[in-house]
């Protein structure tokens, strides 16, 4: 699940949660230039696809802005 309000997703039991940009523009950011907006959205979507290739024990956050630290970060309580 890609969501900007990712804490909701984690506490309600979504297992693979990707941090989106904002509620009004989850996969991208219109305040950036069109190229950077697209690159940002692509990064979010690519992160989401990568979550599908790893095993997770339960609700786990993947942050496209903090690559590498994804899985150890913020497990749902």
């Amino acid at each position, binding site marked *: *699940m*890609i*969501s*900007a*309000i990712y804490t909701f*997703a984690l*506490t*309600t*039991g*979504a*297992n*693979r949660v990707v941090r*989106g940009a904002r*509620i*009004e*523009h*989850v*996969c*991208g950011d*219109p305040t950036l230039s069109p190229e950077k907006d*697209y690159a940002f*959205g*692509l990064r*979010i*979507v*690519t992160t*989401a*696809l*990568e979550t*599908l*290739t*790893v*095993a*997770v*024990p*339960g609700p786990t956050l993947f942050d496209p802005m903090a690559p590498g630290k994804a899985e150890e970060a913020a497990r749902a309580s």
Partner: protein
Amino acid sequence: MSGPLRVVHYVNQFFGGVGGEEQASVGVTARSGPVGPGRLLEAALGDGARVEATIVCGDNFAIEQAEQAARAIAAELDRVKPDVLVAGPAFGSGRYGLACALACRVAQGRGVAAITAMHPENPGVSSARREIYVVPTGPSTTSMQAALQALAPLARRLGRGERLGPAETEGYIPRGSRRVHDRGRPGYQRALDMLLAKLHGAPYRSEVPYAAPERVTPAAPIADLARARIAMVTTGGLVRKGNPDKQVSANAVRYHRHEVAELESLSPREWEAYHAGYFNHIVNSNPNYILPLSFLRDLERRGRIGKVHEHIYALPGVSTPVAVSAGHGRSIAADLKAGGVDGALLVAT
């Protein structure tokens, strides 16, 4: 009301004395009077109540031939005309629990009060607790006596046409329904009492019960994305421009499936958002923000993923009861599975 309380008891093939698992496919039969645990039930019901008949049905038959089983149960109820049907207890047995739930629904559908008992984690509870009365039991038959003692007084009252009070005082499993009644004191006073109790470290209880979210076992990882079929789902309220399908903007009772096999991306000329829970204007300028088709096509061209699934799923995820949302989710998941999808991206606003 005069005359003894007339009870019909529903049991499976095991408790009906027909046999074990090898007899699980036997159809519905009826016996006169109590059988097996029905004798204990009759004792627990006390004076003035009689188990007039026992309906016995194999657990597999009740599940696999549910319509036929329901008709046979209904016929027996029509013949005996009891005041109440008691089903089980089913304890932790899943098929038996579902069968008991079926029997209760059939009875209620014919104006006969009904009650059953089973372990709270029995699938019979999750499938039917909103419609029927279920008394919680332990997971195994060792709790038979306690189960019947808890069930019997409720069965008597239901059989006499009484309406039961709330689950927490009567002891049945909460049905998730609310009734209007007068609590005696206005809400602000009760809220302040609660706040004061909390500040003083004293016990208090919220009037809004916390429903723990369902836990879902994580799906196994995809071995090779480059061969995977990927689908997209959005709760961002994506609709075709002008909303020709007449989707609502909140509390959706249905979701929509759209074909995108021919599309490279979602154009704002053809798609927009209709969702009462966020500012839609930005998505209306680029719908790919809530359904990332443009990105997935890019990755498909580059061979990073195998195939973009030809259908997308959309609804506004706002002000929807959890039970309704769960139903949408199950239905979409089943459709994705049937479509050979390996993985799905769900974008939630």
